[in-house]
């Protein structure tokens, strides 16, 4: 269960099952393995620590009880095989091989009396790294076993057909409009000709109001266009607006008889 192999069901490594059958059981004894299979076999290891853990586990050994000489020999045999098959062999495997060789040699050398206590056991660092790696290897398996969105769990969702799709309207300030207008005028180089006057604006506004008030399909009495509550100034503005509209051919004015009532009508009806 803890062997690095595995996952024969892993879809991205379809050849693993074959290797599991041949390589993982036979390889340790007579190191023969078909070159293709070796490559796949090596792919199942995540690196030198993983391979080392595998060698230890396979013999059912405690990490603290590594028979360094034997494990080192096995490891070296694998590395030799790798070198034959894969020239691009990762340097990490060779570094580990060197480390193992060093530990082995140090263990084999007789220790000079007196200094043994100060010196750390050469296997300690290797054991520390193996342990450290193994706990995260286990953690990765635990993580993989957690219930996961899209695999074991699914969001519960319902439709929301009555959703109001109206978006809030952007805010605009008056000064933004003024600045926009100033910019237009500046760009159009019309600045000097178009000083905007209050009077002009009120006439323009009244033009819009008159146009909106009169229809194209019927005549509106001229006098109805003058609201009395506005007084003299209002009358002047309205008159100016009507004259401007007549001048722009936007209004039509008729009088059926001399001194009779005046009627206005929007010009657009004529063409319909």
């Amino acid at each position: 269960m803890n062997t690095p192999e595995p996952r024969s069901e892993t879809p991205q490594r379809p050849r693993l099952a074959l290797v599991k059958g041949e390589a993982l059981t036979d390889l340790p004894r007579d190191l023969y393995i078909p070159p293709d299979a070796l490559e796949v076999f090596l792919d199942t290891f995540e690196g030198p620590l993983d391979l080392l853990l595998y060698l230890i586990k396979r013999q059912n050994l405690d990490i603290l009880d590594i028979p360094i000489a034997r494990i080192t020999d096995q490891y070296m045999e694998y590395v030799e095989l790798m070198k034959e098959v894969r020239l691009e062999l990762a340097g990490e495997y060779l570094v580990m091989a060197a480390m193992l060789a060093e530990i082995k040699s140090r263990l084999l050398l007789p220790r000079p009396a007196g200094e043994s206590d100060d010196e750390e056991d050469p296997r300690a660092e290797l054991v520390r790294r193996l342990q450290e790696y193994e706990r995260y290897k286990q953690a990765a398996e635990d993580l993989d076993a957690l219930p996961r969105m899209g695999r074991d769990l699914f969001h519960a969702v319902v439709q929301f057909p009555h959703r109001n799709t109206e978006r809030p309207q952007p805010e605009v300030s008056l000064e933004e409009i003024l600045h926009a207008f100033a910019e237009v005028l500046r760009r159009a180089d019309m600045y000097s000709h178009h000083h905007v006057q209050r009077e002009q604006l009120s006439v323009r506004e009244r033009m819009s109001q008159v146009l909106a008030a009169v229809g194209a399909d019927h005549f509106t009495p001229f006098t109805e266009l003058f609201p009395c509550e506005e007084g003299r100034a209002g009358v002047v503005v309205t008159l100016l607006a009507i004259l401007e509209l007549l001048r722009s051919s936007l209004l039509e004015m008729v009088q059926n008889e001399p001194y009779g009532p005046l009627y206005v009508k929007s010009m657009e009806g004529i063409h319909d």
Partner: protein
Amino acid sequence: MTEAARTMDPSLSGEEIRNIVEAALLAAGQSLTIDRLLSLFADQPAPPDRQQIRAALARLEQEYRERGIELRETGSGFRLQVRKELAPWIGKLWEERPQRYSRALLETLAIIAYRQPVTRGEIEEIRGVAVSSNIMKTLLEREWIRVVGHRDLPGRPGLYATTRQFLDHFNLKSLNELPTLAELRDPDEISAELEQAGSAPGDKTGPDEQQPPAAGGGAVPGADSGRTLA
């Protein structure tokens, strides 16, 4: 993987079928047909029949009657959906911050406000560039402008003017209260500042930031003097 399935009785109870149907409708998030629901049980030793699926759906319909969601049959099957009555609350999940209008739109609006009644062609002439139909559509939809007539020209172009809603929105009694450029300040000063603004767009602190608002119209022309117009 099918631990639950393995340890389960060959035939499923009504609750189990209801739970699976419920979970399927919620996981799918869209309508499922009865056939589709049946297919979930295809490899079951004793799969439920159509009648049992219908019973599960009826049960769900009943159980959700007092809840926030409801079971509905649509053209493409059955689905669970938010109750209409809850739309005012649930809609808030998607409430967006309003975006900003483009400069082109503001300029178009400004020209209509100050030069009305005006045709689209005239707006384009003043701006020097075409006015996109989208801009006119947006302004019309917002009911800030409307067509008040047509100019007697080929194609009879519509004449645009601002509306009552436009005045209301900006809290104006009439267009007279729109700020004027003269009110803003001396034209030369504006030009000078426009140049400055163009060269230092990041500088937002104008000398008149603290200035009281100009009289009349309630607008605050030029309070935001550092704004880049270019």
